[in-house]
């Protein structure tokens, strides 16, 4: 007799029994983010992980808890003095938590946001430079919410010392930030590391870091722990070099490589910010991601989130879970876990239905005449894999590229302010122009933007910028909408944007 797990009555068929293929894109349901080349055991682990599975990130939420303030190295893109509520980038947090406070927060979030599947410790320093705090948090969650997956991300320096504990705690996803394998390049990224009770500067320090990262990577792989590698793309420093890094980490068994753009502004007070080191252009980033791709899945949906981010990727609901608010919540752990199981089963049933629908569809080899130029199309979403966010409410746009061969995901584009967050707080006059200008700039390579609704004012500015706005695809599945819009553009004989010329410019 088969035992039924509560809330899983509608257990979906296993992913590998679902037909694969049927869609040329890397992101459609049937191919699970182009992860079909991975072994079943790995696919099963990443299936509902929003940070690893591009498809899952439309449905599932994650959170980071800021329990790890100490760091054992310095990176030129990091400023250890930084602490700001209004800025979103890695290493920035509002409130440091003790392991007890963090566990409370996790249980509160996992109860209020039942889509949550993952808890990560990512800083604001290095989780393994604070091993007691990090592991105490994990112990507490493994005990009270065993369904939550545990992740950590590290610079790798202390990693080999903690592999046993990582394994014992069932932390089955570890992210290592590896920016180089050459100490001379490392010396331009890491001014020092703290190692064996000394601060070691320059390439000597970088060499130690690199060796420890590679050793840690190998040890994790040996034990069957999933490893993702993050790399920060720093033009003129490690951009070309990252192709080699990618080959090496893939060779050793990392299952995903995430090349992220350097974020560097003067006001961040980082070495790169102050010294005027530029970040990559959108096209430079996507070209390097393509070059590194090879046979391994590249990750393009990373949001480079804060070390205290909460919610679906692209959103941050941290302000709903400040310490005083958590204190006031009364949480039934068992009931919350049951609710999560139910919600997750519903999501899986939905994903499965989509997958079956996709598989049944006759997909032509080409979705447009072979001579049609590619078009980038931006969409706005609140999650669920459909176009359901108003243009004026969006602080992020997901950019897809449609070509005759199919639709592929290019990456998210974030803006600080939504065009209009509500009638009362709409910016006026000059400011309003500025907010829209920033959005237009973020979407300059796009030929269309699909939203649940687009207002009249931005509509005309978008058209002037060669970006066709549309609300016609509201509530449609993202990929189908992008494909439909591509057809519309071709039919209308749109003026294709020269993506290569933009890259060069």
């Amino acid at each position, binding site marked *: 007799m088969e035992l039924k797990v509560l809330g899983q009555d509608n257990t979906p068929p296993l992913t590998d029994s679902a037909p694969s293929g049927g869609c040329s894109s890397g992101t459609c349901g049937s191919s699970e983010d182009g992860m079909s080349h991975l072994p079943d055991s790995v696919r099963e682990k990443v299936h509902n992980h929003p940070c690893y599975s591009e498809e899952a990130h439309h449905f599932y939420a994650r959170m980071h808890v800021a329990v790890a303030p*100490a*760091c054992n190295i310095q990176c030129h893109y990091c400023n*250890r003095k930084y602490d700001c509520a209004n800025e979103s980038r890695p290493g920035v947090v509002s409130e440091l938590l003790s392991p007890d406070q963090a566990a409370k927060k996790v249980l509160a979030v996992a109860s209020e946001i039942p889509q949550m599947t993952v808890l990560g410790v990512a800083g604001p320093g290095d989780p393994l430079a604070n091993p007691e705090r990090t592991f105490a948090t994990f112990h507490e969650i493994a005990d009270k919410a065993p369904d939550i997956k545990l992740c950590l991300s590290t610079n790798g320096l202390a990693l080999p010392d903690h592999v046993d504990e990582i394994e014992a705690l069932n932390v089955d996803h570890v992210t290592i930030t590896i920016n180089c394998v050459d100490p001379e390049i490392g010396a331009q990224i890491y001014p020092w590391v703290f190692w064996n009770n000394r601060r070691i500067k320059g390439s000597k320090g970088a060499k130690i870091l690199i060796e420890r990262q590679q050793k840690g990577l190998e040890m994790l792989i040996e034990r069957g722990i999933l490893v993702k590698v993050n790399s920060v793309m720093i033009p003129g420093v490690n951009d070309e070099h990252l192709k080699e890094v990618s080959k090496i980490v893939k060779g050793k068994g990392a299952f995903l490589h995430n090349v992220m753009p350097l974020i560097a502004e003067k006001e961040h007070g980082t070495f790169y910010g102050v010294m005027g080191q530029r970040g990559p252009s959108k096209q430079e980033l996507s070209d390097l991601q393509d070059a590194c791709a090879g046979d391994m899945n590249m990750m393009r949906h990373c949001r480079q989130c804060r070390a205290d981010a909460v919610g679906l990727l692209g959103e941050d609901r941290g302000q709903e879970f400040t310490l005083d608010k958590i204190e006031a919540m009364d949480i039934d752990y068992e009931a919350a876990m049951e609710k999560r199981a139910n919600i997750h089963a519903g999501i899986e049933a939905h994903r499965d239905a989509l997958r079956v629908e996709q598989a049944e569809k006759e997909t032509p080899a080409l979705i447009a005449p072979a001579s049609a130029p590619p078009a980038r199309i931006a969409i706005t979403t609140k999650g669920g894999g459909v176009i359901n966010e108003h243009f004026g409410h969006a602080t992020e746009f997901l950019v897809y590229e449609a070509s005759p061969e199919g639709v592929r995901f290019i990456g998210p584009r974030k803006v600080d302010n939504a065009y209009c967050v509500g009638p009362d707080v709409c910016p006026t006059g000059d400011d309003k122009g500025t907010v829209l200008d920033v959005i237009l700039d973020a979407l300059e390579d796009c030929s269309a933007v699909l939203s649940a609704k687009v207002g009249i004012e931005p509509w005309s500015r978008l058209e002037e910028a060669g970006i066709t706005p549309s609300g016609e695809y509201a509530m449609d599945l993202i990929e189908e909408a992008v494909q439909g819009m591509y057809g519309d553009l071709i039919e209308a004989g749109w003026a294709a944007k020269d993506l290569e010329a933009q890259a060069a410019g």
Partner: protein
Amino acid sequence: MALSIVESCVNCYACEPLCPSEAITKGEEIFLIDAKKCTECEGDFADPQCASICPIEGAILDAFGEAINAPGSLTGIPPLKLAEAMAEIQAR
């Protein structure tokens, strides 16, 4: 002979577990060094541990009140360049 921590401390906890004399504690605002316990790591380590991991230039002073990590020594940002950048941001 003892080191001390000043208000630019960012409370990152990095120094506290490293101190061989258990002289460092978290205070109200910043971490503090108990001057009676601090040995400047003599006999234990070649360099004072707190000052060797502290990421903030000028946050840890020696017994003479001098910054152990001088401006620019940890971030690599030349102090003049940093001043220029700050002035530019202020002027915006």
